[in-house]
């Protein structure tokens, strides 16, 4: 047995080197493949994470604005959108409560750079419906709604104000809203693009685009009317 084993080992000397080379080559291929997979996985994971973050940013920003806009009819026939509103700055009154007439808060939602910031202003004591006055010198609160926000190209506006014309909400009002046009705004459209905070990997589709519209009406249009005011 020992004689045959020694003879056999002597015969394997050159073969071991070939095997080692082949194994090394194959191992390198596997190593590179593994590295590629790991890198790809990390990049995909980062991209997915960024997109999810963008989705959440967009949804959060849209929901916050919409909920307040849909609570903006605080009293019948009182137009909630204020003059001076622009494509990147929305000024409106709103409030939530159970009273017949609510004392509203004036809010300004403004895009500063890529950050949407909301400023709230309190009604001046003594002012009453429908001509509330607000102390706009100092906001009572200021909070960041979302970051990484921009208009959806090619538009440069996030907010669009619309009025009734020929029986449909079809007239886009020019901005900044004039004193005469602001009481006609019966719908506010919000269209924005939200990006993730960081960009760990290049991804052209990382930003989420979202659009929604709040109708500032309590009832539908009468059959014999072509136009109507907000909060009726």
């Amino acid at each position: 047995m020992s004689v045959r084993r020694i003879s056999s080992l002597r015969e394997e000397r050159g073969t071991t080197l070939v095997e080692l080379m082949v194994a090394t080559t194959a191992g390198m291929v596997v190593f590179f493949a593994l590295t590629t997979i790991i890198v790809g996985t990390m990049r995909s994971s980062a991209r997915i994470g960024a997109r999810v973050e963008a989705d959440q940013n967009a949804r959060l920003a849209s929901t916050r604005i919409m909920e307040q806009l849909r609570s903006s009819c605080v009293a019948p026939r009182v137009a909630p959108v204020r003059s001076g509103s622009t494509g990147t700055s929305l000024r409106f009154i709103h409030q939530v409560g159970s009273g017949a007439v609510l004392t509203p808060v004036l809010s300004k939602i403004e895009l500063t750079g890529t950050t949407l910031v909301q400023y709230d202003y309190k009604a001046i004591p003594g002012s009453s419906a429908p001509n509330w006055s607000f102390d706009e010198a100092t906001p009572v609160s200021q909070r960041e709604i979302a970051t990484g926000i921009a208009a959806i190209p090619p538009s440069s506006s996030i907010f669009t104000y619309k009025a009734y014309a020929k029986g449909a909400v079809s007239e886009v009002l020019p901005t900044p809203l004039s004193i005469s046009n602001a009481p006609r705004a019966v719908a506010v459209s919000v269209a924005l693009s939200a990006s993730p905070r960081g960009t760990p990997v290049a991804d052209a589709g990382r930003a989420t685009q979202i659009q929604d519209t709040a109708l500032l009406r309590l009832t539908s249009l009468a059959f014999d009317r072509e136009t109507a005011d907000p909060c009726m």
Partner: protein
Amino acid sequence: MTPPRQKLPPAEAGFALIEVVVSAAVLLVASAGTFGLLQAMGDASGDQRHRTQAYAIAQEDQARLRSLRLTSLNHLDETRNVPLAGTTFKVRSTGAFINDKTATVSCSSDANASADYVQVTTVVTWPGMTSGQQTVLRSIVSPSNGSIESSHGTLTVAIAGETGAPKAGIDLKVGLFSDTTNAEGCATFPDLANGSYTLKSMGEDANMVGTNSNFLEETLVGVPFGGTKLVKLIYDSPGRIPVKFKYRLGSTGTFEAASADSVVAFHGVMKEAKVLGTAGGARVPLIEAEDLFPFSSTYSLYAGTCDKNNPGIGAGLANVVAPAGSASGEVTLQLPALDLTVKNGSELIQGAKVTVTDKNCKDSKGNLVKRLYTTNASGKQSATTTGPTEPALPWGSYEICASAKISGSFRRKKSATVAVQNLAGSTALTLDLGNNPESSECP
């Protein structure tokens, strides 16, 4: 030098290589799983983004619908494309008037039932969407004072079966508007200008007939000024009655199978009787009286095309129920027999033309029903010159004309009006073309 490879022990050759290859295979399998997981994560992320966008678009559409007049939401069903971030979302918007009392599309046994509000529905879909995951938003819009033309009214249609069960799927049409009855058998046409309309109800798709045993029924309805008109219709699955025929010559107790071209089915509720088969057409031994409304009481069935063919009593009239959605047992009607002989003097004429004109019943074109025969070797009426004698006729009064070409010229003989109404025996008639004939052919 290395010894030749073929001298290596087979069990040890390439051992390390195999290990590597197996390891690589295992790694590939693991990689495939990882990539699949990544793919699923990416898909989920994309789907989540589309859902977020679709929800916002649906809300936007709801706001748009709420800005419209209620009259515009009436019968609304439109689809439009909304492109957003490289994806084209398909938005379908619908509006339907709802009765608050029943919380269904307005329909009630209460004559004052009305459409109380509009239910607006938005369905948003997008390419590559997981099946059944579309975004659906539904809300209501209540009519405010002045939002509906005060002179307009509402037409509500309620359709039930013979037993009172609601019938869905009946197509309705009023003027330009169409609708289909829902599971409660109801359909509503709100905001119609007051006045008279023809309501068309069509049961072909639902395979149901109205009480006149027709799939299409027309009803004249009036829409009131500022009110609601409730119209109740009855539709149900049609029944079928197979009808056969028999006759006898003389007073013999032996009956022979007969053929007929048409059968009349009538029920007291029907506005007019239904004629099955073709008056004056091909005579067949079996006629299926089908598409009959399944009244719980009996139909009157008799051979022929009009009420003058109704014997009123006896074996020529059957009273049978048409079961809903199925066939009754076979019915055999006895027809009176006309024992006609056509001859020329003492010679029986084969191949003579015989026209039997019903003196009381008209076909769909308004002409008196004519039945055509020829004569066989016995000079008797038959479908062919060599066929069996066909003496059976629907109960009625007839004018019989026989003509034949004899010695190169036509000879015609007409009878006076003959009543073929004897079920206990038969009616004998001989037309002799040799006895003072006219020189023309029967019509």
